[in-house]
């Protein structure tokens, strides 16, 4: 199976990164594991608490368990909604972008602009944009008679958060898809033209299969970022109305920093972490398998 011998000396080159990751990630995760099994009184006064935090968290009949189950469901729903819009939209826009000429540079730069704006600025922009009195978006929707109110109506709040994410991050999908499309050799299109294939057949049989690798990367990146969304809902809706847009990360911060409930928060972040780790591993496995199949 192995084509070339591995030179394990290469590992020495990543040692500095490993050392950095040790301090920035591994030690904090270990601390979180330690916290998740103990109860704290005052500063640095810990008592062994066994698996009680995890049992509370995973039991939906307790207060924290119900909160966690709801927030988890909400976060999955949000990731799904955002992906369901961003991926098809991104591909569609990428197909429409010019392929040659002076317009390529301009359209790519304009497309990429939203990605350059920091999360909290995006949140603030949209918070004003969505206001009914002075915001163009909110005032326009109210003007045509739609019941739109970000602070009081949960549907409005949800739609707004999803639209923000679509506005902010569809460009990433567009750019990835565009790069993938440009990498398809012209010969494929010529062959399709000779066969008299329809535009749809070209898309389904040539473009989509060739885009598979970049789409896996796009889905992975978008899933990770939507699954840990924090800033936009905090700035625009504050997690409300009620707890309609309180996603996992927001709830986690509320418990850990708002209530200083370190044990509960640690247990919650570990379950959160396990889910993210699983998603990463699945995507990584799919990606490496695609690459291996592409080689042979």
């Amino acid at each position, binding site marked *: *199976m*192995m084509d070339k011998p591995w030179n*394990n000396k290469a590992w020495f080159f990543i040692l500095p990164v490993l050392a950095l990751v040790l301090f920035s990630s591994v*030690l904090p995760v*270990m*601390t979180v*594991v*330690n*916290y998740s*099994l*103990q109860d*704290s009184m005052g500063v*640095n006064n*810990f008592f*062994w608490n066994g*698996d009680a935090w*995890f*049992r509370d968290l*995973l*039991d939906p009949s307790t207060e924290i368990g119900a909160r966690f189950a709801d927030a988890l469901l909400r976060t999955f729903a949000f990731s799904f909604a955002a992906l369901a819009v961003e991926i098809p939209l991104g591909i569609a826009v990428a197909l429409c972008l010019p392929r040659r000429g002076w317009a390529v540079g301009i359209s790519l730069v304009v497309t990429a602009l939203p990605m350059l704006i920091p999360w909290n600025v995006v949140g603030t922009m949209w918070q004003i944009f969505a206001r009914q009195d002075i915001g163009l978006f909110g005032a326009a929707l109210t003007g045509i008679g739609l019941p739109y109110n970000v602070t009081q109506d949960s549907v409005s709040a949800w739609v707004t958060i999803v639209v923000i994410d679509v506005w902010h991050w569809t460009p990433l999908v567009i750019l990835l898809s565009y790069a993938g499309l440009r990498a398809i050799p012209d010969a494929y299109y010529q062959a399709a033209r000779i066969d008299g294939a329809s535009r749809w057949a070209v898309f389904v049989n040539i473009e989509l299969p060739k885009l598979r690798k970049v789409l896996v990367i796009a889905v992975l990146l978008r899933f990770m970022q939507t699954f840990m969304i924090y800033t936009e809902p905090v700035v625009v809706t504050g997690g409300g109305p009620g707890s309609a847009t309180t996603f996992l990360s927001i709830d986690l911060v509320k418990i850990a920093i708002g209530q200083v409930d370190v044990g509960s928060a640690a247990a919650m972040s570990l*379950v959160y972490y*396990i889910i993210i*780790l*699983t998603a990463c*591993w699945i995507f990584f*496995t799919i990606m490496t*398998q695609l690459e*291996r199949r592409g080689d042979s």
Partner: protein
Amino acid sequence: MLAWMAWTWETAAFFGLIAAALMILTLLAIYRPETPRRGILRFPTTRGDRFFVTLLGSAFIYIIWMRFGGGDLWYPLAISIAFGIAMFRFA
């Protein structure tokens, strides 16, 4: 530093075991190199992959056990060990 990280002997033992397992896997990789093989997971896995799947799967076994009101934690441990053996044998 140890006080700041709130260590207990139980968590230290847990991470110690994982560190020891990684060390053993490294030594095995050096002295008994292997080629990935394809098993019930339908893609080629190495010892490291199977170890990772075992750990991740065990975490989910514990989570599901507690989610559905399971009692004593020795049962999920037994299930996890059985799962790990199955992974190393068939994956």
